[in-house]
């Protein structure tokens, strides 16, 4: 026995090492470094033998990728490897939400040349990373991919008639309906893919293909990936260096796959991360302390706002079909307790309209000052009493005017701990005002099911993100017709034809016409606050924590720093994330 155990130990130790090496190496080989394919002068993967990335040339990020990088397909806008769109594939325009400005990117310019005609001019000196020139054909090809039914932007073709090439760098788009707001959104959201490589791919390949060797126009190329990271390497010959004098600073970007937020916090504290886009509860304490961790603001709410958390009423059910009742619920919620207690001031209480701070100009203050609501349990009780909701059985909770018991469930996915806490707060403050709302935590799947089928009472949701237009929020709130399954918008099945008409009108106002937009949004806000189909609760942050140990000049609210959104989240690089990379400076020397 003794001799056997002594023999086993070294064998095991060796076995473990070989197993780990082949495991790690094996997973990155099959995909192969696509950088090698980039004939246009991509930097060769450095020190492939030594294996280490020089710390002072590498940017470590996290908070986007919640699973191993599985595809580099820019059409899969919800799960492509971090940076696929933005670092490799680029968009025609960039949109800066803080200033509400579009800036031409792959496009040189674009304008409406007729009521139903948009003319786009492209830059001439752009090349794909394999050396081929970027032309109008690529753009037309990309938009025409949308003719495939499973491509997410397929509905564009309901109102886009054609995309025609005028010359190699000019395209004329003709529309059947000019949805200006939506079109502006497409202009900075669609990643342009190379026709010469994507042509001939089947619909299945286009949507479900992993696109292992991404060839784009952007500043980075694929270097390697593993279960727990995605590595991009800077490539030479990025068009913007010559055309705009811009240059991305980090040579390598290593995006670390999140296993959990607390792990990200640990790495950040050890300076193993430069930019964490994770939700890190308690980070306020670290920002105030001397840990070298910074956020966009150095005081509450610390973060820029990224989306609104809404509480939907199922307006097809009693008593949520009664707007007086809905209003009473809105007045009963102690949002401050959620903001301070649950989030430690990392989020901001929402405006009564729910529009993000970036959209402040579209909020009609006259409407909100008369119709807006805030936490006020007395007012909630008053509203209930006025509408005939009374506590008849003396349990402290009201019954409906007909005498039926009211017992509602607010559903939140199990495991979403911050929302679960928030739901508990909502439940207790509603009960204090006499409304029986119970927090309930079904599994995510089950929640999605009842939400889509309209079988819930109350549900929290924050699906809609910041964009170029408040139209996207109103589309989310008011979209008609209500279908059997409401899977992305209007979960409350709230039917208001006037509101939907106004929303469609808003879509057809040109983005430059702020006054015209305001006229419509003001009316929408009046309807929203009078009917209260949904209660906006708080703005979730654009979670972003940075350290200055390797890279400095991060975007902050302080003077003389960039103001771009400090994030590498999906669909945010074209809202300024890429520009943030060009503004970074090495902490030492530079």
């Amino acid at each position, binding site marked *: 026995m003794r001799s056997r155990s002594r023999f086993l130990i070294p064998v095991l130790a060796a076995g473990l090492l070989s197993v780990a090496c082949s495991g790690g190496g094996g997973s990155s080989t099959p995909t192969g470094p696509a950088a090698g394919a980039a004939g246009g002068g991509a930097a060769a993967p450095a020190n492939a033998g030594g294996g*280490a990335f020089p710390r002072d040339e590498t940017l470590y990020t996290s908070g986007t990728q919640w699973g191993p990088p599985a595809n580099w397909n820019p059409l899969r806008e919800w799960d492509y490897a971090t940076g696929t769109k933005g670092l490799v594939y680029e968009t025609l325009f960039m949109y800066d939400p803080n200033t509400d400005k579009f800036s031409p990117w792959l496009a040189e310019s674009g304008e409406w040349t007729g009521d139903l005609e948009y003319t786009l001019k492209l830059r001439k000196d752009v090349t794909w990373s394999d050396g081929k020139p970027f032309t109008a054909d690529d753009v037309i090809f990309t938009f025409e991919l949308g003719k495939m039914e499973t491509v*997410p932007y397929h509905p564009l073709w309901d109102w886009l008639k054609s995309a025609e090439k005028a010359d190699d760098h000019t395209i004329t788009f003709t529309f059947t309906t000019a949805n200006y707001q939506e079109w502006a959104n497409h202009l900075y959201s669609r990643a342009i893919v190379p026709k010469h490589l994507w042509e001939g791919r089947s619909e299945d390949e286009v*949507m479900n293909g992993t696109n292992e060797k991404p060839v784009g126009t952007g500043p980075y190329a694929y270097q390697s990936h593993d279960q727990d990271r995605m590595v991009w390497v800077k490539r030479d010959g990025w068009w913007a260096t010559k055309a705009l004098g811009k240059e991305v600073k980090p040579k390598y970007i290593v995006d670390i796959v999140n296993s959990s937020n607390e792990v990200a916090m640990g790495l950040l504290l050890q300076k193993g991360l430069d930019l964490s886009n994770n939700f890190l509860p308690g980070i306020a304490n670290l920002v105030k302390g001397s840990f070298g961790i910074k956020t966009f603001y150095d005081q509450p709410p610390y973060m820029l706002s990224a989306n609104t958390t809404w509480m939907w009423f199922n307006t097809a059910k009693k008593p949520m079909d009664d707007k007086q009742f809905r209003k009473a619920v809105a007045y009963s919620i102690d949002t401050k307790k959620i903001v301070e207690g649950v989030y430690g001031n990392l989020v901001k209480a929402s405006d009564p309209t729910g529009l993000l701070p970036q959209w402040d100009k579209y909020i009609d203050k006259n409407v909100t000052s008369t119709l807006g609501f805030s936490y006020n349990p007395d007012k909630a009780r008053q509203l209930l009493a006025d509408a005939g909701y009374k506590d008849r059985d003396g349990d402290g909770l009201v019954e409906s005017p007909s005498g039926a018991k009211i017992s509602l469930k607010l559903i939140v996915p199990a495991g979403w701990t911050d929302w679960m806490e928030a739901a508990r707060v909502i439940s207790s403050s509603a009960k204090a005002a006499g409304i029986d709302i119970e927090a309930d935590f079904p599994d995510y799947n089950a929640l999605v099911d009842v939400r889509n089928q309209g079988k819930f009472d109350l549900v929290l949701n924050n699906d809609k993100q910041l964009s170029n237009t408040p139209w996207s929020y109103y589309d989310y709130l008011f979209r008609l017709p209500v279908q059997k399954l409401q899977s992305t918008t209007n979960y409350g099945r709230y039917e208001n034809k006037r509101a939907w008409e106004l929303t469609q009108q808003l879509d057809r106002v040109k983005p430059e016409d702020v006054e015209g937009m305001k006229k419509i949004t003001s009316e929408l806000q009046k309807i929203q606050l009078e009917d209260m189909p949904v209660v906006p609760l708080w703005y979730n942050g654009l979670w972003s924590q940075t350290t200055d140990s390797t890279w400095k000049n991060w975007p902050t609210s302080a003077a003389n720093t960039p103001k771009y959104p400090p994030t590498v989240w999906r669909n945010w690089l074209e809202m300024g994330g890429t520009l943030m990379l060009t503004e970074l400076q090495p902490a030492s020397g530079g």
Partner: protein
Amino acid sequence: MRRYLGRKLLIYGLTFFVAVTVNWMIPRFMPGDPVSSMLSRANVAQPAAVEAMRAHYTAMFGFDLPLWRQYLNFWGALLQGDLGISIWLFPTPVSDVIVRAVPYTLGLLIPSILLSWFAGNRFGAFAARRKWLDNTVLPFGYVLTATPYMWLAILLAWALGIVAGVFPVAGAYGFDLRPSWSWTFIGSLAQHWFLPFASLFLVAFGGWAIGMRNMIIYELEADYVNYLRALGAPARLVRRYAFRNAILPQVTGLALQLGVLVAGALVTEIVFSYPGLGHLILQAIQNQDFFLLQGTFLFIVIGVLIANFVIDVAYVLVDPRTRTGMGGAA
């Protein structure tokens, strides 16, 4: 002996059949529809597009076939090593995802199980009937074996990782490295491996030590020991006989404990975000990826069955009595 092992194999075969059936059945009874949850995560703006995608995925995953057909297809695919496609890591095959994670889990499990078994048994045998050790160190063994794996892991991660900063607390190797045969990489690998290994080892060690100590005490009271003593055999010889007899139940114990040890490894990996199967299970649960969860489950069951069989063979080799063909309650 052949009969004994054959019987065992039959049981393992049946177990596998039950596991596969349970595995197939449970998702069909769960509330909610995986396709719609995947689509809602996709966050596509237009209802029409969502419907088209739904039809596509439903056809692809085969939810529209009759149940018996789905069951047969499930077996058919399984026998070809096809565990389906992960929803979380779409479109990576589940088997690929698992194969990548397995080395890490085995790298933790095998050394910690074997080393804790050997060390625990030796230490337990040594401590038995040595009063001062029995009274000082063994209570500590009780504490260890009663410790939830994840709590010991949390304590180690906090004390040695975060406060002392000696060990990293996440991942399998440094994020600034790529796998290679360099000393830097191997060092980093070992450094990341140590804490999860240590917490698994310690808890299991406590259990084996106490088990062995109790066994030896039973044995030392047995008649044959009294007989040996009466014959004047040296104490060392007596203890060696006792040890040989006491080790047999410990071999069986190893088989019984496998499930617990595997479970321990899973939660330990979660604490250290060590990229093995435990980590995978957590992600599968959080992302409602039931193909991945099922695949991991089947994989673990197969692993445990194989390990059980290996232990059975070892038992036959160690214990002469089983060789003569008893099929009883081993």
